[in-house]
């Protein structure tokens, strides 16, 4: 019998299970297959805070959400159409994310009384308890069936039951009419050195697919319409990986060796890990004793002529404050990547937030301006990391690049650019043979000083954290000189506005309501605003990634809208910054500080209350 399927524009699938159940891999394979078929994809992992919480406990639930669509997919989706819950704890932890008309697939073998109790649910019917009765529930004995698929296999029992996630994946592939070939190829590559695992995984995957095809419990299957994405070579990319690669690209373009000094911290560690494996490209990484050493080794490396980077999250940025001031004072290029997480203090290490903005702008002693910018999506981290490095080097200043846990761990397909298409990076290095070098003489266009690299004959000089003479760079306590240097450092950073793109607007350049955001909330804001625009609503979006300095046309944009609402995952840090800059403009706020991204639905609801036409 031919399969009946419903064509749909998009669907959200949430895989959840115990942290040992391999849900991240399962979700990734589903996402990659969809991307491979030409669908738009966005993913987001939801890791448990504990690495190995007790099996079956709520604390140990690990999730992975995939949003698949025919065209642009900018967010991993608010609520899911399909929820896979490998045990009762996973069901309980994720019930709130299942849409009213969703399908829920559970491993019935694990829905024992004992496991249900472990999830903290009392009463006979877990679905009733969780108010999920009206969902379409597929009660599949996944563990038993997986073992049956592998009845003839020589794998031990533990290994057999570990592949049950592939059974669940097989069911999902059937549900969405997707081929198994991509996942099968993945097994072949992944287990090249342990070939005994290839066939069993394939068998279980196909077992899940066939099981779904044969039972009567699945009324409909779906097919996501494919669109015509731009031609070219694509890959999936995570934010942290993209950040690391953007920095490596900047190193190649500038001809400066890349140096990264960092201390591990969630959710930034991935960048250090990604850089550490790139010794083949000459990348030097130091895992140092603390975040202070991270930035100080980077400052040292910058003094010695490298493209210097340090990566961290909010608590680490706090530790770097004093040294950031040093970098401002010695006017050396350093890129500081802050992958923000929930704060203050240790806060919510695995959750996302945008609450380090004020710290990035102001968190130092003295008048201490530097460039602050952000990245807006996983793939965008590549371009923004590249740009941060370019600005740091060409303007001889530290740059803080704000990423966040959401875009750092999230992934999306990326049309791979060619490095030749990226702009050149010209480091203002003083050539050998120059006479009369003045460490604090500046170029007129950028007000950047020139970089004399130790080891170059004739350019010996001394710099440091004491206020310096405006030309010679030697210590100076002259009052007028200090005023001049304070003004100069501010003017230098302000001048960067001449070298960054103007702020873009999505939608009309004037009108009723302007939504304003920055950084990692782009996907949700974009989706919410364009949804409303399609319904004919008068709303536009200005999503900022240059925060200090702001793009030159910022004021002009704001003055053309009747209402402006600044949306951010903090209590209003960007809104307050804008109020300080443009006191004549009224900024409404929409804020959320729950460690979670916005949902599109809450944004559209909010905007609808403001839109007058």
């Amino acid at each position, binding site marked *: 019998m031919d399969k009946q399927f419903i064509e749909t524009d998009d669907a959200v699938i949430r895989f959840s299970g115990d942290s040992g159940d391999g849900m991240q891999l399962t979700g990734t394979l589903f996402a990659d297959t969809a*991307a*491979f078929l*030409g669908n738009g994809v966005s993913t987001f992992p939801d890791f448990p805070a504990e690495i190995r919480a007790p099996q079956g406990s709520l604390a140990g639930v690990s999730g992975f959400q995939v949003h698949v669509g025919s065209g642009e997919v900018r967010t991993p989706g608010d609520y899911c159409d399909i929820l896979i819950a490998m045990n009762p704890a996973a069901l309980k932890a994720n019930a709130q994310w299942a849409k009213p008309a969703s399908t829920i697939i559970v491993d019935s073998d694990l829905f024992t009384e004992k496991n249900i109790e472990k999830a903290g649910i009392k009463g006979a019917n877990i679905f009733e308890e969780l108010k999920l009765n009206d969902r379409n529930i597929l009660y599949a004995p996944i563990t038993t069936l997986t073992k049956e698929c592998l009845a003839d296999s020589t794998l031990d029992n533990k290994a057999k039951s570990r592949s049950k996630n592939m059974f669940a994946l097989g069911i999902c592939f059937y549900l969405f009419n997707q081929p198994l070939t991509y996942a099968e190829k*993945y097994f072949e590559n992944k287990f090249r050195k342990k070939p005994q695992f290839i066939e069993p995984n394939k068998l279980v995957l196909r077992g899940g697919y066939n099981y779904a095809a044969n039972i009567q419990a699945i009324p409909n299957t779906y097919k996501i319409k494919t669109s015509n*994405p*731009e*031609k070219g*070579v*694509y*890959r*999936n990319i995570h934010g942290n990986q993209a950040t690391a*690669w953007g920095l*490596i*690209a900047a190193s190649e373009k500038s001809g400066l*060796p890349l*140096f990264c*000094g960092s201390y591990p911290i969630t959710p930034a560690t991935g960048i250090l890990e990604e850089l550490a494996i*790139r*010794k*083949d*490209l*000459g990348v*030097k990484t*130091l895992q*140092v*004793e603390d975040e*202070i*050493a991270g930035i*100080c*080794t980077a*400052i*040292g*490396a*910058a*003094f*010695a*002529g*490298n493209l*210097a980077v340090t990566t961290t999250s909010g608590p680490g940025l706090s530790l770097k404050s004093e040294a950031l*001031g*040093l970098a401002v004072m*010695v006017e050396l290029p350093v890129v500081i990547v802050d992958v923000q997480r929930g704060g203050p203090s240790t806060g919510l290490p695995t959750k996302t937030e945008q609450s380090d903005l004020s710290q990035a702008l102001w968190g130092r002693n003295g008048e201490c301006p530097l460039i602050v910018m952000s990245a807006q999506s996983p793939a965008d981290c590549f371009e923004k990391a590249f740009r941060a490095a370019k600005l740091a080097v060409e303007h001889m200043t530290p740059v803080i690049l704000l990423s966040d846990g959401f875009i750092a761990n999230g992934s999306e397909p990326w049309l*791979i*650019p060619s*490095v030749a298409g990226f702009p050149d990076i010209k480091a203002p290095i003083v050539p050998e043979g120059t006479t009369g070098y003045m460490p604090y003489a500046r170029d007129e266009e950028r007000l950047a000083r020139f970089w004399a690299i*130790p*080891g*170059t*004959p*004739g*350019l*010996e*000089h*001394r*710099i*440091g*954290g*004491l206020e310096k003479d405006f030309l010679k760079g*030697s*210590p100076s306590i002259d009052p007028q000189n200090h005023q001049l240097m304070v003004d100069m450092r501010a003017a230098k950073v302000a001048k960067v506005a001449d070298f960054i793109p103007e702020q873009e607007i999505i939608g009309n350049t004037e009108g009723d309501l302007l939504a304003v955001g920055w950084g990692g909330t782009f996907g949700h804001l974009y989706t919410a605003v364009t949804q409303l625009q399609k319904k004919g609503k008068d709303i536009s979006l200005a999503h900022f990634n240059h925060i200090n300095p702001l793009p030159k046309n910022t004021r002009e944009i704001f003055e053309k809208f009747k209402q402006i609402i600044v949306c951010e995952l903090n209590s209003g840090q960007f809104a307050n910054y804008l109020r300080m800059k443009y006191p004549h403009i009224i900024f409404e706020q929409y804020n959320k500080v729950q460690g979670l991204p916005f949902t599109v639905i809450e944004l559209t609801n909010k905007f609808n209350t403001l839109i007058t036409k």
Partner: protein
Amino acid sequence: MTTKYASQDFKSDQEVKWCPGCGDYAILAAVQKALPEVAEILEYKKERFTFISGIGCSSRFPYYVNTYGFHGIHGRAAAIATGIKVANPALSVWQITGDGDALAIGGNHFIHAVRRNIDLNIILFDNQIYGLTKGQYSPTSRLGTVTKTSPFGTVEHPFVPGEIVLGARGTFFARTLDIDIKLTAECLVASAKHDGTSVTTVLQNCVIFNDGTHKEYADKDIREERTIVLRHGEPMIYGKNRDKGLMIDYENLRLKSVKIGENGITEKDILVHNMENPNPGIHMMLVNMKFPDFPVALGVIRAVKDSTYDDNVREQIERSRQHPVCSNVDELLRSGSTWTID
């Protein structure tokens, strides 16, 4: 071809601003004496020398040496110097630090630099006081030291810098006196020749806030009696008449100071200094010798060979570059699974 340098070549145009009589002047003279020698022995050009410091009176040092210099922030000199050395291993990197800078606020960076055995030459100016902030006690101040922040005397035990260096698996440790310019220069040349982190502690006098702290063994007339200058391969003999020496007291497993000629002890019974002994046992006993029970040990106490951090980094990179997974960024971006839409 080696360029011949004179001390003068390493003097900068900056006015030296330490207090008159400060021990730092002598250390500056010793460095300016050692550098031409280092340049000659190691065939270094002047531009390879880079001086990095933290904050303190001592840390103003880089301004006075006509080389590349970086005056950092309090306690962080070791980290800044580490970044410089890894970024450019060809540089000869010298770190100037005080007892507060290295052992209080910068203690963490200090022990980790030593543990990594990165090729830095650290000169620790130990005046047992915070000079720049006007005389508060430091981690090396003797128990009971009276300062403005310890008006009734300190109640905490001091660090022995050498003990920390050995505890952190240091490969080079030397100790010298500010006023003994010749010995300081000798230690610094040895430090430059050593591959790996070398720490040279200079017992320095702060005339203003801690005058005479090293006096009881550093004063010229009693110095030979109360200190011992150790030299590799030579017996550990000291004293004006070179009639005293060090032996191991096997019963108590510690060092003992003995008189040659008494109780049948001859020169042959005296311990011979082996700075290259990988086992730090005797070195530890030497750094811990305190007046009046023992002479204070000076000279190069430990200098053992081990692989250095900067060399290991360089080797890993060279190895990876011989068998690269990716040889440029375009290849990197296309590595792993990709798909084509056409």
